[in-house]
């Protein structure tokens, strides 16, 4: 059985309870953390699922490196590692990716959570994508 976003959120709570002493003074930070945990769960889940290969291969074409939509858990793990690195550099951007790509929130919703404009979130999303794309392409090359 697969998981919907709301049930996943619930599961995330349970896991989080195991990590001691986390305090969330406001919703945005909480959601960010939850989203990060959710990312982990999704990847775990993808790993345990009997996955049907639906693409998700990296392949090289004449125009350069093409990164297909990662749906396989290996791809997700690459992405996750890249995200973790991005989080070191600019946590805000990584969080947007967690919230948008993994949790399925819209720009509007994320903007609401963080009390910024939608445009701001969109820009953050673009920047994050740039970083990640670069990171992943670099990995393939090396």
């Amino acid at each position, binding site marked *: 059985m697969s998981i919907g976003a709301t049930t996943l959120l619930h599961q995330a709570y349970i896991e989080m309870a195991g990590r001691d002493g986390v305090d*969330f003074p406001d919703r945005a930070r909480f959601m960010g953390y939850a989203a990060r945990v959710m990312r982990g769960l999704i990847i775990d889940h*993808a790993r345990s699922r009997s996955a*049907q290969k639906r693409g998700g291969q990296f392949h090289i074409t004449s125009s350069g490196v093409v990164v297909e939509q990662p749906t396989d858990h290996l791809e997700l793990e690459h992405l996750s590692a890249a995200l973790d690195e991005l989080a070191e*550099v600019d946590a805000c951007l990584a969080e947007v990716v967690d919230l948008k790509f993994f949790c*399925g929130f819209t720009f509007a919703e994320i903007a609401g959570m963080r009390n910024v404009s939608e445009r701001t979130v969109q820009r953050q999303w673009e920047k994050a994508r740039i970083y990640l*794309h670069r990171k992943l392409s670099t990995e393939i090359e090396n």
Partner: protein
Amino acid sequence: MSTISRNQWQEINPYLDEVLSLPEEERAAYLAKFEQERPELGRLLKELIEEHAVLNDEAFLCGQSPGGFGAFVPGEVAGAYRLISLIGEGGMGTVWLAERSDGRFERKVAIKFLRLSLGTQTGSGRFKREGRILAQLAHPHIAELIDAGVSGIGQPFIVLEHIDGQPIDAWCDEQRLDVGARIALFLDVLSAVSHAHANLVVHRDIKPSNVLVRNDGCVKLLDFGIAKLLAEDSELGSVTQLTMDGGSALTPQYAAPEQITGGAITTATDVYALGALLYQLLAGKHPTSSEALSPAELVKAITDTEPPRLSEATTGGSSTALAEKRSTTQERLRRELRGDLETVIGKALKKNPSERYATVGAFADDLRRFLKHEPISARPDSLLYRAGKFLRRNRTAVVLGTLALLGTLAGLTGTLLQARTARKQRDFAFRQLARAEASNELISFVLSDAAPSGKPFKVNDLLHRAERIVKEQSAVDETTRVELLDAIGEQYSTQDETAKSVQVLEDAYQLSRRVPDASVRASAACNLANSLARSGENGQRPESLFQEGMREMPSGPEYASLRADCLLRGSEVAQERGDIKTGIARVLDAQQVSQESIFHNKVLELSIAIDTASAYRVAGQNREATAAYQRAAEMLKSLGRENTQNAVVLFNNWAYALNQLGRPREAEKLYQRAMSISRDSDDDDAVSPMVLLNYAKTLRTLGRLQEASGYAEQASTRAKAKGFALALNQALLERARIYREIGEIDQSDAMLREVEPLLRHDLPPTHYAFAVLEIEQAQNKFRRGDLKAALRMADDALATDEKSIKAGGQGSDALPGLLISRATIELKADAGDRAVADASRAVRLLQEQAEPGTFSTQRGRGYMTLGNALKAQGRLEEARQAFQLSGAHFENALGADHQETRSAVQSAGLNAK
């Protein structure tokens, strides 16, 4: 190409922002310029922007979230089925076509995965059970609910018979069915709904998309009982319509008026929906004609505005096309729809549920009569009725909606009904919806955050969270904030969190000073007054706040309900300081005022009923109280709010009154009921110390001392933890009594020593509680053999109590008990005739209070004491009679096996010898 280092990224970040904010055409120029000024950084920036273009081409990360919605995959297994393809995505969740996974060739099914995540164990269990019950609802026109289940992670799903068909309105249009044929098809739908009603299931969500017609012309009603499943489980009740779909405040287009105003949902609700459906089939549009209406207008349209007559609804723009789809001409269509058919549908669409067809069957009968050209049973609207509807126009329905959801979750009684003048009606309705939207945010956050520790949430945590959010939400306007805080403060109060309640209501009050609306300010003042009084504050403040509130409250029938509510609060303020007479007067005032209101607010009536009963109880008029409680309980049931916090309060108070009347066995049942309602929230902590304490008292009366001791101890511990002074004081007194009955006099004295300073701190010295304290001390002295001191203290106790009663205060409840206790001491202290006098007086008082033909332990004890006193005086025949009466009372109140019964019977028997 290499990865960007952290420093590089930080440097380039702001410039990235700048470039990305520029429209594409202008970017090249910017980049060129930048590269000139800062070559190295500029080159990197250029690279990144180019990369951005590439990744956009590739649509990098633009696919659907791997873990998000629609994450199911063909071939996945759900229960005994395998998913084939996604059929649709509705508000409630996704629907998949599926087949049995074990290869058995059975028909295909539709599996609906519901979005609600049932967090608790009990929820899942109930869901599964309900599913199985509903699966038995078999009817040729009902899509069979085959099974329901919950995944391992708590995602509920329902397995339905798959219907390959069109919504009924589309089908009828496509087949160009005429009026008669449409009605005939509709009668099939009615038979389905009627069948369900016979099985006590209300659909609650009848609309065209839920009524499909297969290719063979067979109509099937879908989603039956799903609303019921959810309602049972999460107590959404009447607000399913507004909140199920993803939690945003919706246009409740297909909702019946009572679904919006929070009234009871009954079979009449389905009748309304069916009426609306038929209207749509015949007239081509919904009776509320909801194009381009704002949510507020729509709400008003549903609850207030009479729909246009069926025949008139067909005029206008597309009327020729409309007629064509019904295989007729515009003129002929209008003629067909006029008259009886209009009347029939009109009756189904009445705003007041009791004016509609009582059953779906009656509705069907009239339709059949129409088809056969026989006279129908429904009467057309009289002139008077139509004139009356203009009067009703000023009634604005309040969207209890999501606030009621928050309420039902946390057991709120319902919001204050607020009346507005005609001018402000629209703003008001809109504000309510805005508040509903703000509340939705609140609720979805509260719900989503509900279990950070993985355990089911506690109501109080919910409230803490809600409070925080309301304070932090900048989008909420002041008035809304005040109202929400008021509601939260109220709820803390019913949870016995009096300190918290005061704090929140104080905040609300301060905030309200800035609000322009006088009625909001007035209400806030009254709410605070109430809470302060309850928390034991004795100064002038509660009363003066109440007076302030009443002064500020605008006059006029629109504000009557608010004023009545304020009076209720004022009543409690008076009662808390011991002024019972004023308390009762205010409650009766409230009753009268609420009748002036042009609104019909069942919830307020219920509050008044409960408070009236309470006032009587406090005044010691237990007989009136029990009668009033019974009425209130019935009202509660009819509102479908049996299991809310209100019910806990009701049952508790009722049981208390019964116990006072000396009917502990009945009281025990009610206390258990009250406790089980509280425990339903899955947490022992939820049971109020007051209820525990009252239960302990009842157990003591029944002679189950060890149990009583346990509960009393729990009560005092919890009361202490919550800072609930009143409960703590009473609990300590009760523990003193229990210890004495067990024989542990030292422990008993210890309890009394603990409670005395608390009482002195909380209450005025004339309060009758000190009489009670003294008599307990007296009884302990008595047990130790110090008769002189015991008698002296008993006299003091009686004096205190009588003084309190004279001053118009409480204390008459306690008087018989005090007299009996003193009589017991007097007997031993050789004051036999005083004992007889006291016991006789006690028994007389009790008789006056009692309902004729009832029995009670108090009277049993009274007669017992009287019997002993008479015996000591040598008046044996009278004594025997007293003992017999005593025995009769004990037997009926406590049972034949009870020790007290047996000793009374024995005494009666011995004397005969």
